[in-house]
């Protein structure tokens, strides 16, 4: 397939995943509401919010980096997504998967948050600054178990290509990493709790403590962009986890089913727990999940 056609298909799949990611966010809000004993917003509420935010008539700026913050964030989201094969075996939905894309994806997960940190810092609000330092500290912490579990996977399958990792997991659900390398999956799933920023790891956007973290000063279409990115980034992360640990998806339906249940994991935990203090959260990530990750590496390298 020519690179142009590939690009077009990549953007079509980007649209699909954005819609699915936003719908997932809507479903998650609904589930949270049901746990709390109320009806909750409609599932399509995230779409209306994005339209409204983009339709704001005024917007102010705090400088050039302030503009670039959401741009970096959304670039991080798209970048993460572009290198993940969405549907295994599909010519159209494989994006730009190539050898070594695991490393690229891990870099892009970092990239968006760093860009956001720069932009939010320019906003000048003290809560933004506090939240940025919290966010970066926590991100550094949850990347450790995630990186360890990816290294364990690389050692297990002997490749850095996501498509090949999926290929190695084909042939029945017992071939999934979940069953062949459970320790790595546990470490990665715990770090996903931190990545999704639900309780108990919601220290970055803690509304009662630092309302509401880095986006305190973001509004109008900036916020619309950030909200869109929530869809893309959530979708990309879930697809990555599905590919790495749950055997990938061979069609759109199984993709939806699997990503939904992976997301539900962080929702179940999030609805039942209060929030960690930042230092406790870092301490937690560097304790149990890291140990589990190291053990899983040792199992596959020794």
């Amino acid at each position: 397939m020519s690179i142009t056609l590939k690009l077009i298909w990549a953007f079509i799949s980007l649209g699909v995943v954005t819609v699915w990611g936003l719908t997932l966010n809507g479903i998650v809000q609904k589930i949270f509401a049901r746990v709390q004993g109320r009806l909750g917003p409609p599932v399509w509420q995230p779409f209306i919010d994005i339209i409204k935010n983009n339709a704001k008539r005024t917007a102010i700026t705090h400088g050039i980096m302030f503009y670039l913050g959401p741009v970096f964030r959304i670039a991080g989201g798209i970048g993460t997504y572009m290198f993940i094969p969405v549907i295994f075996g599909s010519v159209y939905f494989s994006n730009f998967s190539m050898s070594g894309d695991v490393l690229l994806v891990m870099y892009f997960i970092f990239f968006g948050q760093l860009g956001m940190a720069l932009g939010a810092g320019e906003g000048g609000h003290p809560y933004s600054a506090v939240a940025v330092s919290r966010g970066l500290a926590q991100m550094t912490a949850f990347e450790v178990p995630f990186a360890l579990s990816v290294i364990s996977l690389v050692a297990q399958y002997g490749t850095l290509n996501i498509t090949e990792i999926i290929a190695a997991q084909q042939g029945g659900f017992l071939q999934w990493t979940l069953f062949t390398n459970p320790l790595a999956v546990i470490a990665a799933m715990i770090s996903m709790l931190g990545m999704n920023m639900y309780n108990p790891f919601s220290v970055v956007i803690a509304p009662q403590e630092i309302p509401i973290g880095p986006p305190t000063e973001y509004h109008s279409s900036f916020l619309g962009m950030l909200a869109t990115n929530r869809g893309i980034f959530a979708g990309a992360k879930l697809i990555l986890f599905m590919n790495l640990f749950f055997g990938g998806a061979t069609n759109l339906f199984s993709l939806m089913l699997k990503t939904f249940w992976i997301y539900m994991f962080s929702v179940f935990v999030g609805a039942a727990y209060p929030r960690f203090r930042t230092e406790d959260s870092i301490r937690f990530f560097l304790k149990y999940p890291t140990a589990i990750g190291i053990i899983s590496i040792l199992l596959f390298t020794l």
Partner: protein
Amino acid sequence: MNDINDTIIPEPVPEYPDWRKDAKTLTNAGLSEEEQDWFCDARPQPAKKSWQVMENFLNWARSNSLWILAFGTGCGAIELRPLITARYDISRLGMQPRPTPRQASVFMIGGYVSIKTLKRIVRSYEQMQGPKFVVAVCSCAINGGMYWDSYNTVKRIDEYIPVDVYVTGCMPRPEAVLAGFSKLKELIKGGKAEGQNLYAEKFDWYKENQKRVIKDWNMPDYNW
């Protein structure tokens, strides 16, 4: 509902010279000289509406995604809690409390407004991005209520910021507040809730009123 309809439009304000004829910039005289550089001195301008069909669609989106600023300005705030929690749950109507004024679109004035709070209200209101709407809850915000002779509460909030919908009562029940919000939705869909533009057009009148009661004005004239 007729009564609400009558009170939506604020009292006729005295004719004030068109803002364009005045000086183009604000003086920010309340600030010290070094602080004056930190703040914008441009005046707010009435926003232009876009193409009608588009505007109708956007108004529909606006009315279905009302984000309330989580600022409990008075005792009316106590009824905001049942509203956002399980019993009345306004999130099913697309509303949610928002902790920062930058992202909020509805300001709920909960009852009486003391001078110290009025200063924060003005500041928060101006930091909200338009189109922005104000719902004044409780009779104290409308005419002073039972604090009609108090030295520290303002009697009419619509002299200081434009109000779209009033909800009467002390306390108004959550159902009444909900009815107020549905009225606001109707107004937004009809394109009648243009408090932001009213504020920009009558900017000098509002500023004059604000400065008359806020004696120590140590903030910029318009908080962009």
